[in-house]
């Protein structure tokens, strides 16, 4: 691979993964938390596990940390089978959702906790602690106790402590969940920065899709213990493999119908009596004459007052509602078939100049490549 190529080891057949799940299943009694998962995560990746609560993402991460055993299958880290290896014998560290800072120890003692129990010579520990404090910009707080710090500062201590032993793999369990929105956005960039600086592989668990999209090199969308899709953020967003993923990530319009034409990468879906078929990209596992669903993002749907004759995909309806969000507006348009389609338009003009209002008949349109036809 040449140095200028984008970072994408998952496309390289010869790349060796750092973590490999082979047919991994985890059951708690009769409940199957993880259902026969295969997954490869590569060195220096920032990998996000995304899904609703109870989807198994935390269990998957805890198995990497050694806090849960594997019922079936195999997990290897750096080529070593992890079965039966306790957390303290793994080159893996975890940043806990509650931060789990030791309340009776100062910040510096918290950072030194793991180092004291490693084979690092005593003389080097202070230096390493200092280095970690600098990394998260908390030099002034070395002698504070956790309860004397703010949530954001505690989060950084937890991160520094997890990184202190220079693990091969860092697990982050909802690391920003306890922070307010503004701080969370700042911290996301800080996390990416630190990940790049240290070159550590990060696996993050989150239920916040925006967070996953921002930080991750690849995202695994999970549901009911299964991996629904593992892909880069842009592919997850623009080429979801299923209605579930399309619906889970961001806002989406779904139109259901019959697949009528299928070419190599385009497909058509007929969705109503006498209406021209909708054209879009072809999704995975699609076959002709079966039921399908067309998914298109609201921001890719344009709105017109007159019929745009030059476009293939065009539907008409009545404006039912307008949500004014400041920088943009969302138009809710009811089609004759009863479906409600959202169109999101940037407000690059003042609101008083808006030409469309409630009750107007409008035309919605999108390009042939804006949406995707999925098997349903």
């Amino acid at each position, binding site marked *: 691979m040449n140095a200028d190529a984008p970072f994408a080891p998952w496309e390289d057949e010869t790349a060796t993964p750092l973590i490999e799940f082979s047919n991994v299943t985890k059951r708690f009694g009769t409940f199957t938390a993880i259902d026969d998962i295969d997954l490869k995560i590569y060195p220096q990746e920032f990998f996000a596990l995304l899904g609703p609560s109870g989807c198994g993402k935390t269990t998957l991460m805890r198995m990497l*940390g*050694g*806090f849960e055993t594997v019922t079936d299958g195999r997990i290897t880290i750096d080529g070593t089978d992890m079965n039966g290896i*306790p*957390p*303290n014998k793994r080159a*893996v*560290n*975890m940043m*806990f*959702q*509650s931060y*789990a*800072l*030791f*309340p*009776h120890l100062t910040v510096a003692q918290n950072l030194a*906790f*793991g180092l004291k*129990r*490693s084979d690092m010579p005593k003389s080097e520990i202070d230096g390493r602690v200092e280095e970690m404090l600098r990394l998260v910009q908390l030099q002034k707080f070395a002698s504070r*106790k956790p*309860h004397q710090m703010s949530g954001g500062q505690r989060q950084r201590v937890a991160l520094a*402590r*997890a990184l202190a*032993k220079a693990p091969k793999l860092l697990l982050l369990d909802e690391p920003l969940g306890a922070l307010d929105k503004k701080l969370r956005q700042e911290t996301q960039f800080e996390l990416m920065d630190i990940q790049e600086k240290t070159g550590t592989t990060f696996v993050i668990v989150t239920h916040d899709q925006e967070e996953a999209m921002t930080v991750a090199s690849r995202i695994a969308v999970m549901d009911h213990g299964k991996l629904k899709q593992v892909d880069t953020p842009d592919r997850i967003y623009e080429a979801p493999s299923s209605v579930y993923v399309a619906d889970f990530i961001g806002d989406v319009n779904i139109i259901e119908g019959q697949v009528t034409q299928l070419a190599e990468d385009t497909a058509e879906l007929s969705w109503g009596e006498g209406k021209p078929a909708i054209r879009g990209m072809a999704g995975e596992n699609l076959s002709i004459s079966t039921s399908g669903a067309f998914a298109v993002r609201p921001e890719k749907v344009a709105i017109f007052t007159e019929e745009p004759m030059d476009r293939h995909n065009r539907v008409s309806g009545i404006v039912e509602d307008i949500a004014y969000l400041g920088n943009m507006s969302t138009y809710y348009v009811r089609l004759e078939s009863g479906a409600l389609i959202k169109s999101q338009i940037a407000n690059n003009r003042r609101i008083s100049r808006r030409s469309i209002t409630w009750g107007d008949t409008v035309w919605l349109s999108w390009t042939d490549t804006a949406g995707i036809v999925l098997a349903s």
Partner: protein
Amino acid sequence: MSLARRLLISVPYTWLLALFLVPFLIVLKISLSDYANSIPPYTPTLEVGEGWSGIKEFWSALDFENFVFLTEDALYIKAYWSSLKIAALATFFTLLIGFPFAYGIANAPQEWRPSLLMLIILPFWTSFLIRIYALIGIISNDGFLNQFLMWIGAISDPLVIMNTNLAVYIGIVYTYLPFMVLPIYATLEKLDSSLLEAAQDLGCTRISAFWSVTVHLSKPGVIAGCFLVFIPALGEFVIPSLLGGSRTLMIGKVLWEEFFSNRDWPLASAVAVILLLVLIIPIVLLQRNEQMQREQNK
């Protein structure tokens, strides 16, 4: 401060003044008096009718004679020392038994915990004296314990537990166990289990994680529990006099004998005052511990 607040605060202060400080001053006064074969059995008594000269005469008759006597007769020093030893050792045994109790309850399934705690508190519903008598029924020479052990053939002669120091230890540990379990449970229950996982994640084995997290963080509860057992055990009278033998020397028993058998109220009061002074140290330490804990939790 508003009047209402002053009034509210004055209630507990009045209570303490009337029921603690005034009785203590009376005891202190008696301890400075001399034994007399009269009613009340000490002198001087304050003759308010004689005015200023009466007060002066009363004041000049007070002295530290009884306290000096306590240092001269080895019995008292031995009794204090032996009480300290018995109370400290009994506290240690209570901790040894109480910690696993508290740990077990704190780690039991959520829905079991209230019932388990109830079982710890349940003995309090029975009178303390009845429980001690019940204990006699178990550990005496022909008690249940000996009968059972002889029945299964573990021993041929009954174990002599009654009227020994061992019986006193059993009595103290049994009686004060809840005072040890409850504060330790309170600290263990609050313990975030992810702290243990974090310790293991950072290189601790299960045992060293238990030591460096669970044991360290339960320290305030352990300290509180130890003092709650040690302080009442030090002045304990009922347990040594009912379970202990004639050779069990505890200051509570000595005090009782001075007061009721010898009718030497002044000397008994002096013993009580010294006991109080000895107890002030652990009480202050306990309060400091609680204050520190409160600051930690802020």
